[in-house]
């Protein structure tokens, strides 16, 4: 099936440093998403993005978070500065259209903040 690629798969970072998580969505998809999963818990929506803009974000999407997709390259989630509670697996997803479409997820980027 369609593949969403995420880089890196794992990263350990010192608290206060910046981290960028990269996502290569399905090639013809237009809508992009980030979800956060803390170990053993459910996935939680962070943000969705279309046409260069954030469409909707949850209260988990703190001011330290930002997303962009410069010139159709990677869709990125940047956290600056990182905090201990940012440790989680971050999943990127994409879909062809906004409504009534299957979301395809990447394999996740495991972030450990120490």
């Amino acid at each position: 099936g369609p593949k969403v690629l995420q880089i890196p798969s794992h990263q350990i970072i010192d608290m206060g440093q910046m981290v960028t998580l990269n996502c290569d969505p399905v090639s013809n998809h237009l809508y992009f998403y980030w979800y956060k999963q803390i170990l053993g818990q459910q996935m939680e929506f962070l943000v969705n993005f279309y046409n260069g803009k954030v469409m909707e974000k949850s209260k988990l999407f703190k001011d330290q978070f930002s997303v962009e997709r410069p010139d159709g390259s990677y869709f990125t989630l940047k956290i600056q500065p990182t905090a201990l509670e940012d440790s989680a697996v971050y999943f990127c997803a994409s879909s062809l259209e906004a409504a009534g479409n299957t979301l395809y997820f990447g394999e996740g980027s495991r972030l450990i903040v120490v």
Partner: protein
Amino acid sequence: GDQVEQSPSALSLHEGTSSALRCNFTTTTRSVQWFRQNSRGSLINLFYLASGTKENGRLKSAFDSKELYSTLHIRDAQLEDSGTYFCAAGDTGGADRLTFGKGTQLIIQP
């Protein structure tokens, strides 16, 4: 309370048996997606439903948007079916914001 209530939270089946997982929605839901998360953490798409039922091999899912529930039936369970199964409700708003349940941890025993 949670928008998506998933049950059971854990389930153990012997190979060859069958069972069903369920999600109840507390608010109007446009669609439902079912996923299996394997031991590596990868999310595998199982079904997307806006209504009715779909079947794929030994799996069958149904979504009743009026009664606000969805089910996932697993027939003739195999060892590789082990994993955590999540349902996710599709938002009735614009872009497809999914609200996930807490998952059912399924263990298939020989």
